[in-house]
């Protein structure tokens, strides 16, 4: 059995679980309509959730990018002071930050795709809801006629399939967002604990640089004093 057959079976079993709940297809129409409205709310919530996660990663990215820029500055200062060893240290940290930034970039792009997908689902679902709202009373009213029964069944299976589809889209988006959230929280934790300061070498690197600056200032003072005593 191929992937297509299995996919069909999965969706059909979900559909029949929806349809089994009601004895009368007309009830399924009402139930499906309510269910669609509920799913639409879930999709909207999903979109908001994905957007929030994306924003959080973007903020983290901005913070890392800023630190990388600072490191570049420190490397420049170190070089002009003739301390290639310090410049190297700063650049090593910068490269490692850039790797993290790249990872964040791909995560942000993934969330962006997820967001676009959910927005498309929202549009599609809204149209279906509108169609069903307009038609369902008419379909129910004709239910006694044999051909109308066929129509009801058709609509009900069509809607159930749509419900299964949207349900899966929401579920997968949630799973992805959850995974990203956990990673973002871990990174936030690291940032809180000052791991970023370690990265930017806030301690040792800065001490060295300020020593260099201080000794430069001392030399200048000395030169000034020498000038005065002459």
């Amino acid at each position, binding site marked *: 059995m*191929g992937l*297509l057959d299995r*996919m069909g079976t999965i969706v059909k*079993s979900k559909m029949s679980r929806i349809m089994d709940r009601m004895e009368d297809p007309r009830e399924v129409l009402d139930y499906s309509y309510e269910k669609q409205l509920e799913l639409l709310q879930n999709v909207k919530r999903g979109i908001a959730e994905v957007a929030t996660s994306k924003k959080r990663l973007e903020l983290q990215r901005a913070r890392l990018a800023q630190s990388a820029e600072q490191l570049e500055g420190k490397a420049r200062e170190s070089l002009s002071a003739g301390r290639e060893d310090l410049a190297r240290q700063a650049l090593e940290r910068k490269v490692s930050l850039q790797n993290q930034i790249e990872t964040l970039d791909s995560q942000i792009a993934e969330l962006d795709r997820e967001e676009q997908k959910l927005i498309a689902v929202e549009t599609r679902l809204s*149209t279906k809801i509108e169609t069903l709202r307009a038609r369902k009373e008419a379909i129910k009213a004709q239910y006694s006629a044999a051909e109308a029964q066929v129509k009801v069944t*058709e609509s009900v299976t069509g809607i159930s399939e749509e419900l299964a589809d949207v*349900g*899966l*889209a929401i579920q997968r988006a949630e799973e992805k967002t959850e995974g990203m959230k956990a990673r973002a929280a871990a990174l936030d934790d690291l940032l809180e604990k000052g791991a970023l300061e370690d990265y930017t070498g806030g301690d040792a690197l800065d001490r060295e640089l300020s020593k260099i600056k201080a000794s430069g200032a001392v030399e200048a003072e000395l030169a000034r004093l020498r000038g005065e005593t002459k």
Partner: protein
Amino acid sequence: MIIRIMGEGQYRAPDAILEDLNAIDNRIVELVEKGDREGFRNELLRMVSLVRERCEPLDVAEITESDLILPPPDLTFEEARGIFRGQGLIED
């Protein structure tokens, strides 16, 4: 025939497409068995593109059952393997 790409919507497809889809589907089965992730991804994307390119999107306002259901294009290898092991993809 009506084809649905999960997460994307429905298409009206010429019956002849079934043969091509089946051929790809058979390859996917083999690739998943072999554990070939890269090959699986390529074939899945080929399958989806075939429908996107050769079929007409169904009017969104239409409510009808599909004859064939394609998995979401970003189905992961693990999800595919789960499907073949008979694990459902959709929560109850």
